[in-house]
């Protein structure tokens, strides 16, 4: 039997997984189909929440990176690494789900002129660069410092790209519909957003524990 803290955290993880399953189920069956887009619009309930989390995660990694540089506590390095890992996985999912939607709506998997698609590709490249560089350094402290610095610059580039693509006109990607959604679509969407944010926090916690155990095992502590 685990400690009360462990039980609460396990319950939270299960709750997060349950919420994701429920949100996906709801997205598939509850809202009315948008006639202009057909069934393909249901990808929206998965794609947008994942994209939001994939964009927040580098910010969390950057904040943890700054805290690591200031304090030298490996805890912050692990949080930074974990957030970046999740951001990479989520950004791959966003690119794939976006490509599936684009195939139905635009007749092609990838529109090279669409600025938002390209901005996610940029985020993906930055994250790949982060792991490549980290993986090439053996000394743990140096690896953590490099990771922190890359995380800070990656987050800055992500935020700048997010602002910059809003300057590009015309944009083929659908614009924000947050203020104009029908009640059933709005409810499903916000449940999806909540579910994926909980899922992100649960994943951060699980991967954090995993990384801690791995490091303790490697150092023999």
């Amino acid at each position: 039997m685990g400690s009360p803290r462990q039980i609460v955290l396990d319950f939270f993880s299960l709750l997060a997984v349950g919420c994701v399953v429920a949100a996906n189920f709801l997205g598939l069956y509850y809202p009315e189909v948008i006639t202009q887009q057909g069934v393909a619009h249901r990808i929206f309930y998965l794609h947008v929440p994942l994209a939001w989390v994939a964009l927040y995660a580098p910010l969390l990694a950057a904040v943890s990176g700054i805290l690591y540089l200031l304090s030298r506590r490996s805890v912050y390095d692990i949080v930074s690494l974990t957030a970046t890992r999740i951001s990479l996985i989520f950004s791959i999912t966003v690119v794939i789900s976006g490509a599936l939607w684009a195939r139905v709506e635009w007749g092609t998997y990838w529109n090279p002129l669409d600025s938002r698609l390209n901005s996610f590709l940029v985020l993906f490249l930055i994250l790949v660069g982060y792991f490549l560089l980290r993986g090439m350094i053996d000394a743990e402290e140096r690896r953590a410092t490099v990771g922190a610095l890359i995380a800070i610059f990656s987050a800055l580039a992500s935020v700048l790209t997010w602002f910059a693509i809003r300057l590009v006109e015309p944009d083929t990607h659908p614009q924000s519909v947050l203020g104009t959604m029908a009640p059933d679509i709005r409810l499903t969407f916000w449940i999806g957003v909540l579910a994926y944010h909980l899922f992100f926090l649960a994943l951060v916690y699980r991967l954090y524990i995993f990384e801690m155990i791995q490091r303790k095992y490697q150092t023999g502590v």
Partner: protein
Amino acid sequence: MIHRLSFYRGFALALSKEFRLLLASPGRLVASAVFPVILALIYQRSFSGAALNRETVYGLLLASLIFLSAIIPLWQQQMEKEKGALRAVICSQIDFMALYLARVLGLWIVLLGVLVFLIPVYTLLLLGRLEFWASAIFALGFAALSMAAAGTVLISIAGENKMKNILLPLLQLPLMVPVMIVAVHFFSLPAPLPSDWLIACMPATTYLAAGSLFYGYALLEVQD
């Protein structure tokens, strides 16, 4: 007792060292200017001699400059190591922000020099007419400053890595995408508003501020 250099004295010394290193190899400076010209000729051939619009031409010019902003600091670092200057810099009592700003300024001046040479070449070859557009030079200058600010930090982060020649462009390109988008947006405006001028400066100031704050960590802890 170790005497700590003042910010301005450290800045001036670091800047003069940067220029001495650059002038020590004039062949590399010539190569820096020739390389984008070769790229311009390739672009001209690729577009079959068709006259392009202004934002495409300036965008291609910026894309060519990205390579230089990664290659020049790489040369500088290599020369510093050969002459043992890098260890001396790290051991000295110089303010790291002054050192960073001096390095960025040194690289920026080189990039601006290359730009002044390249603008007539690119406009003549790709636009079909000679053009010096003041607004474009402002946006190109700030884009070059962004490249210098990010490139200087990245070369220190890549440090001693054997794969740095491959890693640097991989890290540099995504950081330069917002710089390119902002600059190309600016070139497309017939009459930029004050807010557009501010947006054109945004990436450079962001990278410069972050680089000033964190350069010391990269220099002290990543280098051997």
